[in-house]
């Protein structure tokens, strides 16, 4: 590494430390806790195949003798299973880490899908105008008047009817991403459309048009970089919503199959044991879900305020 690149890196770091965002981050303890909690959970979930104490997806490694062991601090607890085991003898902590991985994957993927779809439609709508614009916006308006969970349920139901049960189970994670993504695109489309309408009239777009650039390139290469500002905030808040929606659908039994359990599936499985006294099978995945969503929500709220110059 040459001296100039080191200097440049230091300069960037200096600028990051001096920025308003960093300052507002440091000034709120709650946000810092939320960031740490999110980071720990995301890392723990992403690397769960390495970090988890047991591999719950490998049937050979679990034993029915260990089933329904309570958490370690209770009587009959076993030091191998920090948070106890479920009815199959699976370690709850590992199951939660694996489950959080599925939940987070579905959450991130569906937010990304919704963002790509919504931003594209918003750009097209704003730039093209006319019939296409009113068609897309009317569709968005209609969809907005129904709750997202209902739309996701419906899309999942349609796939369930169109595919046979085995194929559906294999594709369940992707069906889920599609269903949740399709129910969240509207907000991106509306935001991007309104900023596109503003950008459309500016000189640089005019100039690009005069040089004879095709509309596709104008929209995606010139307008797109200028309308992405608010997207990060919407995406963060949507991530929390997407995780909740996935968990809810899985809890209702129309989400990911038990062979690849997400947090919602774990809560659904554990719910049957709530009455027989094995509360830890439900409550721990539930707490993990709640903490994850709360942390992401707090980060989203903070990001919205920190990036909004009006509130400073």
């Amino acid at each position, binding site marked *: 590494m040459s001296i100039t690149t080191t200097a440049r890196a230091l300069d960037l770091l200096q600028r990051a430390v001096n920025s308003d965002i960093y300052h507002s981050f440091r000034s709120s303890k709650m946000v810092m806790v939320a960031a740490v909690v999110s980071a720990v959970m995301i890392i723990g979930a992403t690397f769960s195949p390495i970090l988890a104490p047991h591999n719950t997806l490998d049937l050979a490694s679990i034993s029915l003798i260990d089933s329904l062991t309570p958490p370690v601090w209770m009587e009959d607890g076993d030091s191998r299973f920090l948070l106890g085991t479920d009815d199959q003898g699976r370690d709850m902590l590992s199951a939660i880490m694996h489950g959080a991985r599925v939940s987070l994957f579905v959450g991130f993927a569906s937010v990304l899908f919704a963002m790509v779809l919504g931003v594209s439609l918003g750009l097209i709508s704003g730039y093209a105008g006319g019939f296409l614009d009113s068609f897309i916006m009317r569709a968005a308006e*209609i969809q907005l*008047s*129904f*709750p997202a*969970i*209902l739309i996701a*349920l*419906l899309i*999942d*139901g*349609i796939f*369930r*009817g*169109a595919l046979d049960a085995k194929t559906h189970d294999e594709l369940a994670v992707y069906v889920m991403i599609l269903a949740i993504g399709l129910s969240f695109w509207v907000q991106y489309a509306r935001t991007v459309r309104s900023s596109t309408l503003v950008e459309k009239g500016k000189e640089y777009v005019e100039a690009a048009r005069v040089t004879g650039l095709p509309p596709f390139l104008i929209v995606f290469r010139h307008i797109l970089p200028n309308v992405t500002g608010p997207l990060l905030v919407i995406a963060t808040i949507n991530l*929390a919503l997407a995780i*909740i929606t996935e*968990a*809810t659908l899985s*809890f*209702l*039994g*129309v989400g990911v199959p038990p062979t690849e359990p997400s947090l919602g599936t774990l*809560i659904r499985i554990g*719910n049957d044991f*709530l*009455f027989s006294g094995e*509360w830890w099978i*439900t*409550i721990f995945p*539930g707490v993990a*879900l*709640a903490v994850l*969503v*709360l942390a992401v*929500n*707090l980060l989203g709220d903070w990001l919205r305020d920190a990036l909004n110059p009006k509130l400073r």
Partner: protein
Amino acid sequence: MIGFILKRFFQSFIVMFLVAMLAFTMFNFLGDPVNQMVGIDTSAADREALRDRLGLNDPLYAQFARFIGNALQFEFGQSYQHKRAVSGLILDRLPATLELSLISAIFTLAVGVPMGVHTGLHRNSLVSKIFMTVSLVGVSLPTFLIGILLIFIFSVQLQWLPSFGRGEVVDLGFWSTGLLTATGWKAIIMPAVTLGLFQMTLIMRLVRSEMLEVLRSDYIKFARARGLPSRAINFGHALKNTLVPVITIAGLQLGSLIAFAIITETVFQWPGMGLMFLQAIQVVDIPIMAAYLMLIAFFFVMINLIVDMLYYVVDPRLRVDSTN
């Protein structure tokens, strides 16, 4: 005014038409209704005869017209799973869902509005801070998790409230109600709270921000200068003016309550429409899915329409705009 109403009616009509088309497409392309109705040993000729009798060999537009005609008469065919008319099934389940939604809406307003007023008036009091924290948790916790936690605390640990069902139900002929028996009331407490908690936090935050805004306005300062007691100012002047948006949101949220009842009904095994819809999705019982879809869409469209009109009645500025 008439133009506005006509336009809104037309829009609602289009939405219903689209939803009907979706429901009809589901009917036609997801699974073969004949296969669902006959046994394995039915001959091909008998199947063909049944297809003819059901009109499945007619052109699509004729089938669609008949579907719409039937839907207008609240007729959605036979459920594959229950072997009964879907309309009858829905009418059986409707009271449970509507009662739950209504009680939940009352809870939402009765608790959410006072909490919002308090946090608006005393921004920095300890109680307000507790309320705001609770509301953040209420937004973050998924509905089904709240339900499970309530069951865990009040049914498993304390054993105060039943964890499933409606309790004893009184049949009034056209309506079966759980609100006339003690067990019915006990059974509705947890589902109603679970269903309403998210909406309650929404109402609370809305009332709070509206109150903060109104309290800054000139006529409130003037009322204070006139020496009116603060109770009269807070409730007679400020709260009254915050209620317009609150009523709108509450109206719109009523639709969400009916839709979110799917989750609550599953957690508490509440015998309503939502639970039936969810069971129908799992076994791909298309007639029930189609009927529920149409019914929910109808509720939503009607609620939106009424709220829009209420806006028009309540806010005189809209009337001025449309005449210019």
